[in-house]
């Protein structure tokens, strides 16, 4: 009798739990969800914002046939992100789920007004990944997302996974995530930044700006003519949560150098032997580089000593790179070029953007005794008055495989 009672009790408990947890199960079950891959936010004419969602329709794998996955985009005008999700939930049969959202795109106009509310709302959501990339696009976010289609990959999520990796070996873009943005919003010695995205000009039809240097490229006005619609080159700089400026490719390389985020990059420096031509150099930062920040008379004095190792990438006829003199001439040219580029970038951030996006404030915190002292000093306002002293020392070996032609 006892054991029968026990068994009945166990069955009742299991049934109670089944019923109680069933609603959560049907809310989170894989079959009932539509996975958003990309999210875009624009200024809207009728309401507050216009939200764009991008989905992938999974191909049904039956015997033999292997269909391509379809990419679907839909937009809606709404007053807030939650409102937009609500409206789309009634539009689709499945429920929207942001747990696989890879990129979040803001248009330039929205970014100029301030995006902290959206960032906090998104980070408040359980589903959003902190490692999702955040992009500010020069055109409409809707247009940007619609132009995204994978050219070398089968699925677009693979493209979204892979594209920030190029920051490691070109330095032309940076892996800006929404988690990083959220952290930097509240930090008082660094400022947030995002990737700068745009649609290639050959697709959009707008004219190119005259470029002298091929390192001066930027999204939306780059000289690429390709099959893929979008490009991500450069960075968008924020002060607190408002967009204050954009950085082009070489400036992004400087940003990555100072953040110690790049493994290697290629730059074109003026040839010391020939005024009109350039040499391409393959540069690797060395670990003994130092950044030192001191407060002198109330203003920051920032001393940057960087060491690089480099190899000559472009080899012309009749060039010899075993000669000590020619190597040191190229090194000097490289040093001068890097110093000028870095100083330009640093003064641009401090005087034009007035925002310490590189996060140089963290090197000076150790000089302060307590948090109160640091807050009283107010680094963000004093960054405008900073003086930069950049010293570069590059050690150029020979070329990569050839040493003499």
């Amino acid at each position, binding site marked *: *009798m*006892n054991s029968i*009672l026990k068994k009945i009790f166990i069955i009742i408990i*299991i049934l109670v*739990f*089944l019923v109680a*947890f069933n609603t*959560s*199960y049907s809310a*989170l*079950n*894989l*079959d009932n*969800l539509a*996975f958003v*891959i990309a999210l875009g936010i624009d200024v809207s004419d009728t309401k507050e914002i216009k939200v764009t969602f991008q989905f*992938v329709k*999974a*191909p*049904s*794998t*039956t*015997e033999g046939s292997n269909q391509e*996955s379809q990419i679907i985009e839909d937009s809606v005008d709404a007053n807030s992100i939650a409102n937009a999700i609500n409206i789309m939930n009634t539009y689709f049969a499945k429920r929207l*789920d942001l*747990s*696989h959202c*890879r990129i979040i795109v803001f248009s330039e106009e929205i970014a100029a007004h301030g995006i902290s509310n959206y960032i906090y709302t998104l980070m408040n959501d359980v*589903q959003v*990944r902190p490692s999702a990339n955040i992009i500010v696009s020069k055109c409409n976010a809707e247009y940007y997302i619609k132009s995204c289609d994978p050219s070398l990959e089968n*699925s677009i*999520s*693979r493209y979204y*996974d892979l594209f920030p990796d190029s920051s490691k070996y070109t330095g032309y873009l940076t892996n800006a995530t929404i988690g990083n943005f959220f952290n930097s919003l509240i930090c008082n010695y660094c400022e947030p930044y995002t990737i700068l995205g745009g649609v290639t000009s050959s697709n959009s039809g707008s004219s190119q700006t005259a470029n002298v240097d091929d390192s001066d490229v930027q999204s939306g006005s780059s000289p690429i003519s390709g099959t893929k619609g979008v490009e991500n080159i450069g960075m968008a700089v924020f002060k607190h949560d408002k967009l204050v400026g954009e950085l082009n490719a070489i400036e992004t390389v400087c940003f990555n150098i100072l953040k110690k985020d790049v493994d290697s990059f290629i730059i074109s420096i003026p040839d010391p032997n020939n005024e009109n031509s350039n040499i391409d150099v393959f540069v690797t930062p060395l670990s003994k580089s130092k950044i030192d920040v001191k407060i002198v008379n109330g203003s920051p004095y920032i001393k940057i000593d960087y060491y690089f190792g480099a190899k000559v990438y472009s080899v012309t006829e009749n060039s010899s790179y075993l000669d000590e003199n020619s190597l040191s001439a190229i090194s000097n040219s490289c040093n001068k070029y890097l110093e000028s580029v870095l100083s330009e970038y640093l003064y641009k951030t401090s005087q034009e953007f007035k925002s310490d996006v590189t996060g140089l404030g963290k090197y000076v915190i150790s000089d302060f005794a307590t948090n109160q002292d640091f807050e009283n000093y107010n680094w963000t306002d004093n960054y405008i008055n900073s003086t930069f002293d950049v010293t570069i020392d590059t050690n150029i070996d020979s070329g990569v495989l050839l040493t003499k032609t």
Partner: protein
Amino acid sequence: MKVKDIINNVFGYTPKNTYHFSLPDDSDNPESTTIQNSKDDQKNSPNIFENIDTNLDYIKTKYNLLINSDIVTRNFILNARGKQYKALLLYIDGMIDSQALNDFVLEPLMMRNKNNLFDSEQNRVISEAVTNNITVRKVKKFNLDEYIQNCLIPQNNVKKETSFKDIFSGVNSGNCALFVDTLPVCFNIDIKGFKQRSISQPENEVVIKGSHEAFVENIRTNTSLLRRLTNNENLIIENVKVGKITQTNCTVCYMQDITNSDLIAEVKYRLNNLEVDSLLSAGELEQLLTDNNILGVPKILVSERPDNAVKNLLQGRVIVLVNGSPYALIMPAVLIDFLSSPEDTNLKTIFANFLKRIRALAAFFTLLLPGLYVAITSFHREIIPTELLYTILGSRQSVPFPTIFEIIIMEISFEIIREAGLRVPSPIGPTLGIVGALVLGQAAVSAGIVSPILIIIVAITGISSFAIPDFTFSFHLRFFRFAFILSGFIAGFIGIGIGIFVYLSTLCDIESFGIPYTTPYAPAINSKNNGFLLPPIWRREYRANYLASKREKKQDKISMKWKF
């Protein structure tokens, strides 16, 4: 049943009367119950006494004749040259050839034959010399032992021994010893006749580098297998009869100077107090000897290999053999024993440990993999990489059932196929496995009843359950994976976490003959290299101390003396 009784039963206090046996853990005083290796061998073994009764008494003590059931002594009167002497034969039943013993040892010694009819004191004359009417004869006195050896025993291999040590080693290997009153020597007669190789290969525990002999149904043959491998007089084989009608012969085997006496007493106590009508197999006896059946885990190891049984005997465990069943019950057995195979000590340690880890992983998969799949697809979709997610979604598009229903259908079908495979007549036996798996699975996917990913999950689970060496243990895991599927469905990883907690707590509470089931990991004791993973062979110095055996060391610190 009255309501009052029900309330009393549910809420009232009923003292638990659990049967509890615990093995003493003498880890701090090892000297009290252990015999060191070196002390024993230095005792000198005495020589054979002239008086046969003294000999008999010594044999009775040494061989524990009163409790050992297969050591036989045969007293008879030996006829030699008309004189009668008291004689004694000592042999082990099952190891000797009975026909040869009767014809060639007992008959010439006992019956009257022409040689023995000669009944005078006549001595054999060697030479005779006559001087001065005095006859001097050189005679050879009548030497009984010479006479017996040379004339009386028509057996091809007879040796004279003077020390008990040699006699016992002879008897242990299957010879027969002949003691004669007044003689200080003993005859070691080679008359081996144990059965060899009608014994077949083991069916369920196949080992590549070990012997290919398995136990058979006859208990004497089985005990002879054990005797041969142990080759030591300290192996005690006691006989117990179980079952009021069938009076089945069971034997309890243990090493007297290694196994803990409390353990032996407990096993014998349980075996002697069974009031059943019949006992027909080792499986029934296993259930009758287990104290409780929480979670259905096996607590007694069942093996059909004599080398495995002897290995466990020498560690300090007790073996029970049942007549009519080719399995030995080895007790006590803990969790790590059910994940070890007899092959492990034959291989190099790195390979053996690799295989052990694979088996532990297989046990984990058998228990948890379907539950984890249900939990991930129901509650934790963010763990899945996005590419895999689309594959799963694509494959589930045409499936009408929810995941839980799919999994239960597939698991139950798998169990049905497995059960059917046991009963199919042998010509189509193997094909059913292949047919069942491939065609049925493929057809189910094509018909859109299940998704391909699920087939893979169920297949991996099924194959992992085959990788577990012990049959009962894999049954236990197969049964409980349904509980984990249910808990994963109800509450995702939280449900599985709570399920693991309850399961682990119950597992830690189980004791097998007084030893905690999860020894030596919980309670954490220093098992001296006797844990789950094997140390190299030169490091296996100590026996497992959770068995509380009498001899701690089984190897010297430097066992490979040829190296140093």
